């Protein structure tokens, strides 16, 4: 028996992946080597060209302090606080005053008559339309409204053995369905109530908000690639268009995944930014690591993703968390922190607590300051995605070579690569005019079957 075959068997055994799944060739990564903490693997569909270490349990991509880590209240997120917190109202008033009492929309579309570069009517139109389905409530319903889904659900809970499938294979099938419905990446995490917003996990007096049911056992994390050219226009409006498009696709896809699960007779609760913290769920589901910019960094698309999730009681098989050198690279890089126009990104070492009341404390990470981030440029900035060295098109062997080097976790090499990245002109703002001159092919690589 060859060494590779032994590794593969050991891999399947340790990762809990059935041999039938291997035979069917369903999403099984290619094992490159065994490491101290798991396996180094390649899987083009899920990780692009980046080799990734699948962690088998001894190590985890983040550390937490249970005495500090509490359920984050939804009302304390900076987005919610903008609606009720007098402190935030005052801060936003000051921002508006600094802009002569005008909103960015008024400045760009009325005062400057839509003639400012990257802020034209064309750019605004793309942005506003891209958000069209982002926050439509029906997509995030906790129950189905569809008669045909209810009809299927009445057959009771689906058993994968009816289709000659194991639960491992059913889990792969569910992720396949998620990609079919429009997700760029899909992973499964064991449900951890710690990541759920306090209001959805503890009954609040006088509130009629629904609580996450106790039988929920897993979460499907869905990532949606944002348009590369759009993000590269940040802080121009096209970056916000890419963001809005991500949010809109999140809503539609999360809804469809939830309906699919409900049709199989299980509970499904779709969520966008609401209900729970998305990033830790995505990390648990093996979609990526946390970067200095406070964002999920995925091996395939870097930080250029939005995240949705679907809670379910379907007994799926969770994916292992992954590591591919983000923490070590962010230690050396600093590009996002140095270039952040609002100074919201930490240039210091990782800490256990942040400085803002909108930080969720208790995990060792780089805490960002969400208030100045949110106030900058009329809520339209993706500079930390644009200039992140992990934000690259995903179809070039050159970037694979670089990512192979990042996986070596060498500080000296990382520093050289950061310098080369800057010298090569990556991460600079691309003008909207260049975007509009393109031939119309969106640069979302997950829409390109060749990528």
């Amino acid at each position, binding site marked *: 028996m060859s060494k590779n075959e032994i590794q593969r068997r050991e891999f399947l055994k340790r990762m809990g992946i059935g041999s039938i799944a291997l035979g069917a060739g369903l999403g099984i990564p290619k094992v490159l080597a065994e490491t101290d903490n798991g396996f180094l693997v390649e899987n083009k569909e899920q990780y692009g060209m980046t080799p990734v270490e699948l962690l088998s349990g001894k190590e985890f991509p983040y550390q937490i302090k249970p005495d500090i880590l509490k359920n984050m209240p939804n009302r304390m997120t900076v987005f919610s606080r903008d609606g009720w917190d007098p402190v935030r109202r005052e801060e936003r008033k000051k921002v508006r005053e600094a802009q002569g009492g005008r909103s960015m929309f008024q400045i760009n579309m009325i005062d400057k008559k839509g003639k400012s570069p990257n802020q034209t009517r064309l750019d605004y139109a793309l942005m506003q339309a891209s958000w069209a389905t982002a926050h439509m409530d029906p997509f995030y319903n906790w129950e189905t409204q569809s008669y045909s889904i209810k009809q299927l659900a009445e057959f009771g809970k689906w058993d994968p053995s009816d289709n000659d499938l194991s639960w491992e294979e059913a889990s792969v099938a569910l992720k396949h369905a998620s990609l079919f419905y429009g997700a760029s990446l899909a992973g499964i995490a064991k449900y951890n109530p710690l990541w759920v917003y306090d209001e959805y996990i503890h009954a609040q007096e006088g509130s009629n908000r629904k609580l996450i049911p106790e039988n929920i056992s897993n979460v499907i994390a869905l990532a949606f690639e944002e348009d590369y050219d759009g993000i590269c226009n940040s802080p121009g409006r096209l970056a916000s268009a890419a963001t809005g498009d991500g949010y809109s696709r999140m809503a539609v896809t999360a809804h469809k995944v939830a309906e699919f699960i409900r049709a199989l007779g299980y509970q499904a609760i779709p969520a966008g930014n609401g209900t729970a913290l998305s990033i830790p769920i995505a990390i648990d589901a093996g979609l990526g690591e946390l970067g200095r910019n406070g964002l999920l960094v995925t091996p395939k698309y870097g930080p250029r993703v939005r995240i949705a999730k679907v809670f379910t009681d379907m007994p799926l098989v969770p994916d292992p968390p992954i590591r591919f050198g983000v923490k070590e690279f962010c230690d050396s890089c600093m590009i996002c922190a140095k270039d952040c126009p609002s100074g919201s990104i930490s240039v210091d070492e990782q800490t256990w607590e942040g400085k803002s009341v909108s930080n969720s404390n208790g995990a060792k990470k780089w805490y960002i300051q969400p208030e100045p981030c949110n106030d900058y440029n009329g809520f339209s900035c993706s500079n930390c995605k644009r200039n992140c060295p992990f934000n690259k*098109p995903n179809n*070039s*062997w*050159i970037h694979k070579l670089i990512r192979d080097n990042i996986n070596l976790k060498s500080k000296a090499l990382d520093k050289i690569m950061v310098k*080369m990245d800057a*010298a*090569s*002109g*990556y991460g600079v703002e691309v003008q909207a005019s260049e975007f509009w001159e393109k031939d119309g092919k969106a640069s979302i690589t997950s829409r390109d079957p060749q990528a």
Partner: protein
Amino acid sequence: MFSIIIGICLAIGFVGLYNRAKSKNLKISWWQWAVTIIWLLYTGFVLKLIEGFIIEGALRAALVMGGIFGFLSIVAAVLLFRFVFFKSLSHE
């Protein structure tokens, strides 16, 4: 397609150097041939690198990285030719 062109150019280059060594009766040791092959492969890598950046639309990257790695290739070529393939000129 570009890879094939690079491959053909490198093959022609290697055959040309081999013929020169043979016709001029140059004594080239095995390690000098090894260095020559490494240089040829490296030059191919640089050309592919430039092509990759151009395909991606990263023209500045093509220029900068092509410049840095291309310069190293030229320096290596000068050294190689000076000390291997032209070292015996005085004896010709």
